[in-house]
């Protein structure tokens, strides 16, 4: 249970960082908005998968 909570904290931080970095990148290169968004969603989805794996292991 505690482990799952820790994993979710980690996943939250990870997705937060992905989103934050994507925002920064869009700020720097507004033209590449579409590509950055796609890359961001893929990375976020992969991190999210780990979170779900932890939740289902409980």
């Amino acid at each position, binding site marked *: 249970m505690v482990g799952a909570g820790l994993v979710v904290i980690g996943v939250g931080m990870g997705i937060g960082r992905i989103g934050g970095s994507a925002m920064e990148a869009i700020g720097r290169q507004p033209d590449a908005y*579409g590509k950055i968004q*796609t890359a961001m969603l*893929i990375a976020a*989805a*992969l991190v999210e998968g780990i979170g779900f794996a932890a939740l289902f292991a409980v």
Partner: protein
Amino acid sequence: MPFALNKLNAVLILLALSSTPYFLQAKDSETKENLKAEIKEYISHHLEDAHDYNLFSFTNDIGEHVYIGIPLPIILWDKGLHVFSSSKLNHGASVAHVDENHYKLDHGKIYKTGVLGVINYDDSHHATNLAPLDLSITKGVASMLLISALMFFLFSNLAKSYATNGAVPKGIGRFFEPIVLYIRDEIAIPNIGEKKHGKYMNYLLTVFFFIWFLNLIGLTPLGVNVTGNIAVTFGLALLTFIITNFTGTKDYWLHIFDPLGGSMNWYAKIPLYIILIPIEVLGIFIKPFSLLIRLYANMQAGHIVLMSLIGLMFIFKSWLGSPLSFGLAFAISIIELLVALLQAYIFTMLSALYFGFAAEEHEHH
């Protein structure tokens, strides 16, 4: 703006309607100590597949449960085919007599019983009765058939309208054309490549709209949870798996079994490949597996959160708590609308990415 107000009213009425099933079900409970257990059971009941569309239920004056809904056909294989309506099972309350056999519903599963419909349990509370092979058109299957039929008519009409109308979309086509173009130009072509994307487009479009529509129908008062069913997502991921590996080029398989190529001597590769090849082979299976788990877990989690927030209303039972949980449920519903689209997008996107790996062809160095 009266028009905008009308629209807002329509949305509010829809929302009120969509929450009535939960109201009526939870009002049944008289005892407060059982309330939490009942809400829990109701949520888990909602997440499972069922043998009928149960819209709502209530307890009438003489104290019996009344279910309002649509029964669905039950198809059993038990030394011969038995087809009957799920209204005969009466939500587990009565025994169905079919062709000299007797069946009873217990916790969502059909068991063969005697005339009296007695179900025996072992020590761990599992039913020990014989279970016939259940091929029924359940709630999930019926929803999928419904969506398939809808998509078939919608998109075949859409395709036909292009031929007659001088390639200008009309009606609902104006809504769907940008989405179809988005999938082609932003998902298929960047990931698979200009040359080969054509043969994957039909699968990508089908899977996108199928998942999206099923996710949306899960948010309606019908209360179906199709994409939150691991068997359904398993089937979808299996399709992606099959297409990826059966359209794989020589380069795709070389990448798995000889990732270093000609850049190294064969005897130097051996110790590396003892580790690398098993990882690559595992990767073939992990990719669709992650698709399966992601869609299932996201939709399942969304439904649990939504139902729990609505359930909070009956635990608080106060003027402060109920608007709060209603507001939260409303906000989560809006997020779920977005998630419905996002999960369909991610599934399509990642499928396209995997097809891109399978279709890769690079110059040999």
